[in-house]
């Protein structure tokens, strides 16, 4: 059985730290885009040339691919595969597990050799890990009763 949190809460400070890291790595690695997502397929943060709308769809698909790959791992007697890599004519995408709930997708053009892609994915993952650990360790600001009540009261108006 795989347990999980009921909510993942992200603060403004968390996102600022991640955005700063990604912006720097985008320059250093010459990646086209760096995307942080959770295993549900939600986009958490991104930096680079891919539009936000496409990054939302990329996140859903990357999490789906990753999750399906892990069913494959189990069939083969592995607990899980920690990365998947897709190589195209123009673009490559490297998806790897950063922590039990979070995935990192790094998109490169075809100029980057596979060794460099793996190197940068590993390096970015290593830098982001302490930020995620800090996020998990700090008490999170939970949605207030007021917000919860407001949501329930106003759902009808949203449809």
């Amino acid at each position, binding site marked *: 059985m795989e347990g999980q949190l009921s909510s993942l809460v992200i603060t403004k400070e968390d*996102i600022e730290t991640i955005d700063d890291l990604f912006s720097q790595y985008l320059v250093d690695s010459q990646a086209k885009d760096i995307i942080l997502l959770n295993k549900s397929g939600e986009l958490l943060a991104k930096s680079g040339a891919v539009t936000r709308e496409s990054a939302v769809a990329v996140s859903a698909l990357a999490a789906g691919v990753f999750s399906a790959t892990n069913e494959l791992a189990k069939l083969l007697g592995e607990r899980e595969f920690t990365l998947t890599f897709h190589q195209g004519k123009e673009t490559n995408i490297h998806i790897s597990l950063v922590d039990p709930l979070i995935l990192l997708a790094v998109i490169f053009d075809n100029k980057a050799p596979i060794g460099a892609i793996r190197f940068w994915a590993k390096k970015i993952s290593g830098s982001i890990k302490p930020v995620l650990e800090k996020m998990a360790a700090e008490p999170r600001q939970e949605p207030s009763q007021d917000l919860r009540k407001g949501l329930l009261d106003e759902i009808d108006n949203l449809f």
Partner: protein
Amino acid sequence: MSLIDFSKSEITFKIVYYGPAMSGKTTNLSWIFRAIPEKVKGQFTSIATETERTLFFDFLPVELGTVKGFKIRLSLYTVPGQELYKLTRKSVLKSVDGIVFVADSNRDRRKDNINNLVDMFKNLEEYGLPDTPIIYQLNKRDVPAIIPVEELVDDLRLKGKAVYLGIASSGVSVMECLKGITHEVVSKI
């Protein structure tokens, strides 16, 4: 797992449409895609085989509106219903916040409904999510060889649960189901 992003003031929920093959899960999503305004919907991603059957999943992000300063977003998914894609179905359920179970009212699909529901609960149990909110859409209420509502409710043990009678191809109960499950998932945050 809902995502609460204070940096963008957004809350995102993952809703999965589950059910046997050809019960109308993709039809529900297609209707929603057509019914909601352009500016609140994202890209509709569908991974289908050459015969238009869902192979992996359909995905539609929707922005419902703003409540108390928070944008409410839904990520809507369907699963492939065919028996062959059992493991793919399981993988899409990962970290789900709420489920719309779409049952087929056709008499000859009786067994498929039951098997699929059992399969869903087994997967939720394995993911440690036995308390996930679920609502039930008894779809295709316009077919000739129809299972009476009482019989379907008995078959799927739905007495006392949230049940909607639907004809997704013409939009009957599609938005009501979406609203119903949104209400359920919001109550859980």
